[in-house]
């Protein structure tokens, strides 16, 4: 969009920025769509936006995946009105933990491990980070760990499904506009 008056400060926008913004927009759209889904327990969500993070991780590396994931958490929470609410910090803790695990998981030998492994590991890290933050801050009682089996089950199921979707997307010949342009 062209500015009405010429700006005195020009921030150079690189192809990287456009690519990250495009994927982050997709992740945010999935986050927003997901809030319409009913959840049996607060905290149990499919985490569809993580499909985008996995695709970005496999195609463009960890740095881009971290950008997309964190932009998704911040902008997604702004869109759904949760910015700086407890849910935002839980999502941030989960995202940071799963990014940390993905940083290690990307070095798994690709001969034996695909996106499904990365997705499941990241999903476990996600609930791990959330439950630790919840225990330290929101519910100062070991009772939260009582819910761990349920959260772990959800992480396993949704992690596997998201990983399969990401694997299928990655399996297709890439037709990303960014790559076509590059």
């Amino acid at each position, binding site marked *: 969009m062209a500015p009405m008056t010429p700006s005195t400060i020009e921030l150079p926008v690189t192809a990287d920025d456009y690519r990250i913004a495009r994927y982050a927009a997709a992740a945010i759209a999935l986050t927003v769509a997901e809030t319409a889904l009913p959840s049996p327990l607060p905290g149990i969500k499919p985490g569809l936006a993580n499909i985008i993070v996995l695709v970005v991780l496999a195609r463009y590396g960890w740095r881009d995946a971290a950008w997309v994931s964190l932009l998704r958490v911040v902008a997604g929470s702004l869109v759904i009105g949760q910015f700086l609410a407890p849910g935002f910090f839980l999502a941030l803790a989960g995202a940071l933990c799963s990014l940390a695990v993905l940083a290690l998981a990307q070095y798994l030998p690709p001969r034996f491990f695909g996106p499904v492994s990365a997705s499941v590991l990241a999903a476990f890290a996600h609930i791990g980070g959330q439950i630790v933050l919840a225990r330290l801050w929101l519910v100062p009682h070991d009772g939260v760990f009582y819910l761990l089996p349920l959260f772990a*089950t959800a992480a396993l199921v949704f992690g596997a499904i998201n990983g399969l979707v990401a694997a299928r997307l990655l399996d297709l010949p890439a037709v990303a506009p960014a790559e076509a342009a590059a």
Partner: protein
Amino acid sequence: MTGRVPEGLRELLAQAAGEGHAPWRTLLKAGDWALLLMAALLVAASYPLLWRGGVADRAIVKRDGQLVTELALNTPRKYEVVGAIGTTVIEVQPGRARVLSDPGPRQYCVQQGWLTRANAVAICAPNHVTLQLSGRSGQNGAYDTLNY
């Protein structure tokens, strides 16, 4: 309409809706299967480990078998009970309770330390005082009583 869908999402949706995919199972490699199996076993193992017994939420203090008070285990506080030979001090913290001090000669109930699980009990016999934890419902209690 399609103009409003972000580029990346449209691309991904188009790919997801595309025809002629390889079957799902070919997307899983040997390590993926192994990891899924291990994760499933770990998750299954977490159910009995974490759902055994109940999480205590109340401390029940009795003297001579008569209920003295019930303390909720969510705010830290201290409670004094006057017993047969002196005063027993009960201390409550979130999720746990203990006998802080007791006039009994052998201090068994004090040395028992923190009680955390439902139905755990500390008995200060000389002073006729007992401290017992209670879960949120009687039927899921794995133990009638816990002593050490």
